[in-house]
């Protein structure tokens, strides 16, 4: 257990509404990641963070924004949710080994349904 929680765990929202998912960690890990998982696509990286206020895009970042104002929290925002963003969202953390990110650990996931 790497001390990762995600909230909410389940959410149903309507198209066009803003949604924010939260990832919280308790062990001061430097790197944090957001992935989405869809049938037939495995896990795809949305955004990641390598420190407070340091973020970068992943493979599928369109329609998503992130913020990290403190070490323990990494927020994923859907500014205007669409049905194509219905998915399971996973947060992950890793620590650097030297200067490189090391082994990843995942949170329990958030199931988001956009109707």
């Amino acid at each position, binding site marked *: 257990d790497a001390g990762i929680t995600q909230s909410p765990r389940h959410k149903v929202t309507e198209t066009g509404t803003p949604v924010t998912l939260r990832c919280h960690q308790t062990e001061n890990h430097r790197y944090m990641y957001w992935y989405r998982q869809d049938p037939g696509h*495995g896990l795809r990286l949305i955004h*990641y963070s390598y420190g407070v206020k340091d973020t970068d895009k992943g493979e599928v970042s369109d329609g998503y924004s992130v913020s990290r104002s403190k070490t323990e929290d990494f927020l994923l925002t859907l500014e205007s949710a669409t049905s194509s963003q219905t998915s399971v969202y996973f947060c992950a953390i*890793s620590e650097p080994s030297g200067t490189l990110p*090391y*082994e990843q650990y995942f949170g*329990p996931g958030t199931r988001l349904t956009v109707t």
Partner: protein
Amino acid sequence: GIQVEQSPPDLILQEGANSTLRCNFSDSVNNLQWFHQNPWGQLINLFYIPSGTKQNGRLSATTVATERYSLLYISSSQTTDSGVYFCAVRSTTSYDKVIFGPGTSLSVIP
């Protein structure tokens, strides 16, 4: 970017059988992990194995980084081994990003 392939995509085993899952990647990596996603959706770390061989009980893994592949061996399979197995890699040219393969779906039947 780096491409990751896994084979086979689906596998059905009788309890007690052995199996080998494969992960191929298209670029040099400095990080490779194997995960098991159980039927409840939880992602469980199996191995961190950028090179060499590791064993943990009935599971073992080998990565040959120079030939760009990794293998996961499951021996004496049990129904609790069912789920999806993912490999994930971090390339040497994009070290912040971890890219997942599409997974191998394993069903172990009693």
